[in-house]
């Protein structure tokens, strides 16, 4: 092969490799298989919806599946509702890139259910009807609390939902190359069909089916990952520690500190904390939001109204904890397996956040990108991910629609005087409105940074909803004043703190990074450690926080220079293997350059974030440690400053009923 030919073929080759990435991880020749699996799962959920539609006539059936779901079924549905794409693809991805720290997320997501089990599920089932508003309105002013509960429910659900829609659209595009808009509309229409025709019955069963598929897929993948090591834990971990790709990833993450470590020490470091989560206060703050936020998520609360009584509600949390916990233990193997077989570098190449780790691991375990089984596995995991998004979004839409129709329309506007038919109609119309809004937001948010939205949903739920629900259930003096003040201040402070946190996009930082990617970084001198000027400085960027010493770094060349060198070097390469690697590297560099140039174009002339900040004011990514105590404090202050006779008079009834279940909403007879 002469030099001229190679040079000519280069742009073509890199162009085709880029096109391939844009078309998704599944090659064209295997697309039929993907669509077949997707079609099968969609057909199954459609059949469920058809079957459910015949059972949904009353409001109790529409919002709460006639309270006829068993504890075990509800446990699976909770797992289906909770294990969103963000938590299963996201956590497997984090583990595949950062090892131990990714696994720490799993723990928080499970422990959250202890709060749900011990203090929330049964009392809420005993005194509530369909919504968060019903629980709060029991002893407080019904109109005021229903309005504020509905606003909070819709806010939390829209945050969560937007993250799911955008994440889902991107995921489907990366996996099978369907256009972002098409997949958002597809998810929206399917979800609307489940909710509008099948209400909570269809939503529940879609969530159950999805949870079962997800668990089966994970068990199969983990078995395949672990079997070569004879199901030995130290054996498997030994494999991880001695893997060159993982060692390289750790070296990349810890920078200069890697210089005097042996390869084995680097590998072992992957199983130790501190590669991703670096700020201890932020970690505790995240833990607080997870542990208290889950119990305040309206779509999770709503699930407890679908069972016949408090005992079944208890049973459903125990089942959910078993399933969710078991699944998260499996994510450790999925994540480490992906790091081992696919390699962190390849995972990042497909998606920076690592979200593709589990699907690509599936493809590898089935036999690789060119095998039938490999593509079947990939298609299956992708279809489960798709079903996940649809099922989670359906639950969120139902929660928002119930707040809109049941709390606002029936409770406040009609003063509880709507006929049964009218109520069901209002519920269906609200579902359509929320569904259409979700699709529109999903399309508008294309390409936006939505990573902070799930965190924001948890933070608002933990700071606004949980203090209100908890104190109205357990504190005699709690009243309308406290609920209104606490929910307003708790929610708004959580949102405001996220808006000034490092989660937002800061154009100056993006532009600086883009320039560094393109042009490289100059050598830097060592910086001595800095001491903190006080606790406030650890939270807000108004004074000096504690910083460890930094060692001097050498100058690094930029991507443009590297690419030029690589292209020049390729001319002399003769070994096809070496040339192949070089071409791959060149493709990656071209991608980096394109992204940096796009960023520069996108943020040209901009200097401040959405709220006008040049750099984050809050040092924490998670506002919980500030906004949760504030939420509790405001419920307490508001209650003490406000007089509400009804709240006092109703206390005895609330307390007796939440503990005994006397007069709890019963199951519909079938």
């Amino acid at each position, binding site marked *: 092969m002469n030099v001229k030919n190679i040079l000519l073929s280069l742009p073509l080759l890199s162009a085709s490799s880029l096109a391939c990435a844009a078309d998704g991880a599944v090659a064209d020749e295997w697309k039929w298989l993907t669509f077949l699996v997707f079609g099968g799962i969609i057909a199954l959920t459609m059949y469920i919806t058809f079957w459910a539609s015949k059972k949904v006539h009353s409001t109790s059936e529409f919002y709460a599946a006639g309270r006829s779901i068993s504890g075990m079924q509800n446990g699976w549905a909770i797992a289906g509702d909770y294990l969103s794409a963000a938590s299963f693809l996201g956590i497997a991805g984090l583990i595949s890139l950062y090892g*131990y*720290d990714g*696994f*720490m997320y799993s*723990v*928080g997501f*499970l*422990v959250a*259910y*202890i*709060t749900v*089990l*011990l*203090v929330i599920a049964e009392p809420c089932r005993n005194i509530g009807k369909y919504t968060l508003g019903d629980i709060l309105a029991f002893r407080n002013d019904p109109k005021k609390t229903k309005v504020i509960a509905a606003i909070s429910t819709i806010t939390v659900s829209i945050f969560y939902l937007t993250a799911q829609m955008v994440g889902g659209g991107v995921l489907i595009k990366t996996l099978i190359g369907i256009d972002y808009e098409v997949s958002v509309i597809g998810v929206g229409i399917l979800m609307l069909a489940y909710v509008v025709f099948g209400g909570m019955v269809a939503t529940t069963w879609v969530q159950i089916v999805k949870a079962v598929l997800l668990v089966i897929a994970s068990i199969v993948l983990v078995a395949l990952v672990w079997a070569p090591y004879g199901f030995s*834990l*130290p*054996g498997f*971990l*030994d494999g*991880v*520690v001695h893997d060159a790709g993982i060692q390289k990833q750790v070296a990349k993450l810890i920078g200069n500190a890697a210089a005097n470590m042996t390869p084995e020490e680097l*590998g*072992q470091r992957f*199983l*130790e*904390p*501190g590669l991703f*989560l670096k700020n*201890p206060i932020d*970690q*505790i703050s*995240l*833990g607080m939001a997870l*542990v208290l936020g889950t119990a305040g998520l309206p779509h999770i609360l709503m699930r407890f109204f679908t069972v016949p009584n408090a*005992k079944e509600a*208890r*049973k459903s*949390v*125990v089942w959910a*904890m*078993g399933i969710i*916990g078991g699944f*998260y*233990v499996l994510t450790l193997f999925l994540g480490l397996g992906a790091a081992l077989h696919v390699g962190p570098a390849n995972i990042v190449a497909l998606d920076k956040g690592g979200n593709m780790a589990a699907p690509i691991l599936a493809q590898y375990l089935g036999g690789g990108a060119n095998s039938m089984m490999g593509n079947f596995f990939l298609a299956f995991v992708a279809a489960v991910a798709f079903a996940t998004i649809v099922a989670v979004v359906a639950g969120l839409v139902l929660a928002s629609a119930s707040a809109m129709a049941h709390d606002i329309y029936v409770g406040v506007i009609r003063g509880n005087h709507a006929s049964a038919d009218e109520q069901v109609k209002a519920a269906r119309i609200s579902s359509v409105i929320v569904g259409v809004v979700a699709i529109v937001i999903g399309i508008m948010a294309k390409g936006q940074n939505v990573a902070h939205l799930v965190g924001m949903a948890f933070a608002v739920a933990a700071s606004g909803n949980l203090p209100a629900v908890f104190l109205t259930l357990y504190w005699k003096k709690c009243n309308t004043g406290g609920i209104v003040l606490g929910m307003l201040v708790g929610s708004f402070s959580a949102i405001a703190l996220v808006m000034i946190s490092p989660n937002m996009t800061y154009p100056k930082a993006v532009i600086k990074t883009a320039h560094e990617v393109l042009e490289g970084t100059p050598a830097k001198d060592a910086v001595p450690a800095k001491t903190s000027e006080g606790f406030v400085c650890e939270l807000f960027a108004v004074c000096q926080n504690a910083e460890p010493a930094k060692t001097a770094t050498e100058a690094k060349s930029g991507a443009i220079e590297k690419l030029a060198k690589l292209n020049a070097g390729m001319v002399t390469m003769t070994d096809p293997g070496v040339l192949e690697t070089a071409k791959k590297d060149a493709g990656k560099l071209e991608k980096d350059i394109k992204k940096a140039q796009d960023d520069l174009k996108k943020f040209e002339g901009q200097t401040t974030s959405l709220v006008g900040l040049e750099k984050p004011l809050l040092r924490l990514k998670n506002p919980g440690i500030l906004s949760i105590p504030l939420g509790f404090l405001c419920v307490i202050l508001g209650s003490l400053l406000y007089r509400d006779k009804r709240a006092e008079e109703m206390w*005895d*009834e609330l*307390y*007796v*009923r939440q*503990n*005994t*279940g*006397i*007069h709890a909403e019963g199951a519909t007879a079938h």
Partner: protein
Amino acid sequence: MSKNEMNWANIDTDPRFQALHAKKTRFLWGLMIVSMVYYFLLPIGTAYFQDIFKIKIWGPFNVGLLFALSQFIVAWAIAYIYARRANTEFDAMAQEIINDAHNIK
């Protein structure tokens, strides 16, 4: 049967309800505190006690991994302990009050 028939204040002061309330409160708070303390030891440990977390105990399997996995066991154990106690004891106590609720005037 109208809902107004119940005398909630008197049920609340009924010794059987008070006994249920006292037992449940103590038990729930105890479990809640144990689980929260155990959980927050994880972020605190990873931040301030990294040296302990790095100790290898079974091949590359270290204290950190053991502690993270133990979180699952503890969460499940708490769920089991609570469910058992509630199923056998609290439910029966509540049922007794429910059966007699109309007579508490």
